[in-house]
């Protein structure tokens, strides 16, 4: 039935977890009181009248982090098969990984020097 052995449990667990969430939400809907009113549904802003909405243009300070993150995350994904098979590959694989990580470290140093890793 399943091409990949063991993954029927993953599918089953997704269903079980979703059912647990659904049960909690349904139970709470049955138990909890329901009242209406305009005032009580206003956005919380420390007791003040909310000034404008939060859906405005804002400066995503860390988009450079996100870019560097993508690079290193892909690197990590490449390194996983290397690590699993390392004992069969031996010295040559070590040198290759050394070059690979070296190139990425140069990239990290470049980003660091350019100030991509600063919050402001």
């Amino acid at each position: 039935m399943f091409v990949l052995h063991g993954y029927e449990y993953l599918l089953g667990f997704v269903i079980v977890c979703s059912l647990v969430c659904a049960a909690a939400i349904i139970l709470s809907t049955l138990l909890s009181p329901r009242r209406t009113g305009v005032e009580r549904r206003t956005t919380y802003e420390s007791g003040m009248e909310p000034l404008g909405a939060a859906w405005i243009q804002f400066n995503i300070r860390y988009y450079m982090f996100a870019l560097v993150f993508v690079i290193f995350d892909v690197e990590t994904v490449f390194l996983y098969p290397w690590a699993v098979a390392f004992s069969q590959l031996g010295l040559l694989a070590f040198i290759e990984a050394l070059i690979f990580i070296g190139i990425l470290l140069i990239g990290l140093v470049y980003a660091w020097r350019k100030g991509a890793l600063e919050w402001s």
Partner: protein
Amino acid sequence: MSSGIDLQGSFIQLLTDYGLPIGVAKTVWIPLPMLIIVAAVTVLALVSTWLERKVSAAAQQRIGPEYMGPFGMLAPAADVIKLLFKENMLPAKTDPWLFAIAPLMVFIPVFLSYLIVPFGQNMVITDLNIGVFLWISLSSIAPVGLLMAGYASNNKYSLLGGLRAAAQSISYEIPLALSVLAIVMMSNSLSTIDIVNQQAGYGILSWNIWRQPIGFLIFWIAALAECERMPFDLPEAEEELVAGYQTEYGAVKFMLFYAGSYANLVLSALLVAVIYLGGWESPIPVGWLASLIGVSESTPWLQVVTASLGIVMTLFKAYLMIFLAILLRWTVPRVRIDQLLDLGWKFLLPVSLVNLLLTAALKLSFPVAFGG
């Protein structure tokens, strides 16, 4: 290596003895360990909220919860009942769909990760061959939920909290993945079962913490940051952001966030136990003790004792780490956002890369000690 108790095998054997076909028996078995794990994890998370209150109280020379049950142990249950009875508020300006889905996006991946947490040789829902990698990939879904919650609330505190949460969790994911990578290299496998078996043999001396001390520290710091624990609880820093992305949440949706975050803490502690502290192995090997008193390892009662001891050991190690996390909360002040990112990118990332290369070099030089 004894194979331990095979609950699945015995259960299916029992059902086929009653005349059921084997396919049906297997299908009946599948949901059982899952329901047990979901119930157990809920209890473990509730116990850690109780522990958090008690230890926090002790750290501040207070008593903490006292009247609800013995030592206030029923306080978490009272919390759950209270949250279930609360009104399910939906602020007028929110995006209702995103607002409702966000807690599920945080809650479900955390619980799914328990799929690969072993409590014994066969005490795991399924021994997937991608093991820890499944956990690493699932842990990157949660930030999406946090961003969703922050955006959907249409509240400035929530938005800032959600953005901080996303920045924080992407910064600490790479050191986390790289420190796990060094362990994977030593055990030649991604499966959590293999990782624990590779640490068996010499009791406490063969645990990974002695061979990967740097990796252990990186893993624990990054795991605390992923769980948004003090000193890395910037996304919900209450002095600045009220409650961060949770500001507008209440009742059952808040409960899902809350349960998710404590389940995540328990998960991280369990994985520290499995990856670095020898999982279900005792500090003194059971097989060694058994041969000392002259009992064969395949004796049925000894297998039951070993399996129970394995579960107790895993939980004991995990709760030791949770205890440490709670004490850290009252010891270390909260870091600033730029300090947080500096720690992640300019310290942990280079150190974890060096640790990985060091492990590779050591494995080439001393293949016997590093899982050759």
